[in-house]
């Protein structure tokens, strides 16, 4: 949770909400880029940025070399698999229908 994972911003998916597609270790994930867009700059100025992603939010810019090194270490810490698994499981949570027998509100 606290280590985050490096990725590269590849396209803007929702300018209004400041969301972008970020490629993280070969996997694409939508990420909020509000914290890394330069003040006054358009959202798409961050395309190509390498960023450190924490729970779906790009929190800091990093350079490409640093990103590669960080990724290598995170792999050894087992954090890359953990993050990618969490992203996958989250996708399932988004698709999930309520378990049977669960009562609805109202």
């Amino acid at each position, binding site marked *: 949770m606290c280590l985050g994972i490096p990725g590269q911003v590849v396209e803007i998916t929702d300018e209004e909400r400041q969301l972008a597609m970020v490629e993280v270790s070969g996997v694409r994930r939508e990420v909020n880029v509000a*914290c890394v*867009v330069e003040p006054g700059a358009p959202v798409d100025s961050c395309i190509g940025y390498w960023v450190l992603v924490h729970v779906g939010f790009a929190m800091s810019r990093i350079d490409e070399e640093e990103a590669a090194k960080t990724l290598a270490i995170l792999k050894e810490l087992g954090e890359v698999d953990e993050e990618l698994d969490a992203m996958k499981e989250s996708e399932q949570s988004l698709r999930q229908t*309520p378990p049977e027998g669960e009562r609805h509100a109202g």
Partner: protein
Amino acid sequence: MKYVDEFRNGKQAQAIAKRIAELVKTLQVSKQRPLQFMEVCGGHTHSIFRYGLAQFLPEEIEFVHGPGCPVCVLPMGVVDDCISIAEQPGVIFTTFGDAMRVPGSKKSLLQAKAEGHDVRMVYSPLDALQIAKQNPQREVVFFGLGFETTMPSTALTLQQAAKEQVKNFSLFCNHITIIPTIKAMLDSPDMRLDGFLGPGHVSMVIGSQPYEFISRDYHRPLVIAGFEPLDILQSVYMLVKQLVDGRCEIENQYERIVPQMGNEVALRSIGDVFELREFFEWRGMGSIDHSGVRIREKYADFDAERKFSMPRLKIADPDAAQCGEVVTGVIKPEQCKLFGKSCTPQTPIGALMVSTEGACAAHYHYGQIEIPLSQVVSR
């Protein structure tokens, strides 16, 4: 690239280790007792164990593993509150995976899920908000936890929910804040730390400036450190160097990520959404003044504490578990009576055994397989 091997065989690490060893010998105090440096952050704890960093240090220096693993300091009563929300009709309870296995007084969220309650693991609060939009007839609650590293993500999500008026979305806010926590440790009568390794990614958000009181009022040095093993060794060197020079400052080894003033967008969002609580209850550390945040009145409609009834009980840890002593550095993980016996990562009793950032789980996974320094150096 095998970073562990490269690091262990690396000349750089050994060179820093040698410089630390030489410096520390010139310090009078280290002859009477080991110097104790606390790494506040759980990410550092993980890295220290994974790379066996303690073996690169002379015996005059000890790491004390601090409270910076958010799920590890989560009180059992809060887990019970989560479960009580999750058990209410029509609720979808969303949480980071780490929190799923933390034991409550009766069960964990994972067990509640197995019983048929709709508990879902999410990678990001953004996904919880998305689930709320997809299920307008259900109440979707996100369990927000963590220090300032994850606080902006929840704050920005809540602002987005308010903007879009996603009224079936709410946050059960259990975020904690680092500065009052460090202050509480410094005020403790047992305080015997000689310095701190400052958290890297909390500092990325808050900057280096908020730590200034530690050197000014408590005369302890703090070095904000990166997570790579060389970063940590370098930071230890910087701490020892300060002590040798008779300096006491806040230094930033992790300048490539940590700006002095932090991240403005993140801080603004945190300030808009959250305010300090009078106190917050920690597992193993008791109640600490102003160490948690709650949701401001203007976002009351999105506050799970106001939306749902919950037991809000204080539940003591099992008597035999010594999590509190481990988390404050009084004993080491393996000195706890339950360590590796009834408390393991598969069957955690205390929360320190749950997350890989917890001192006990890290020690369990890596502690016993460390390679003696003599072998490392001679390779």
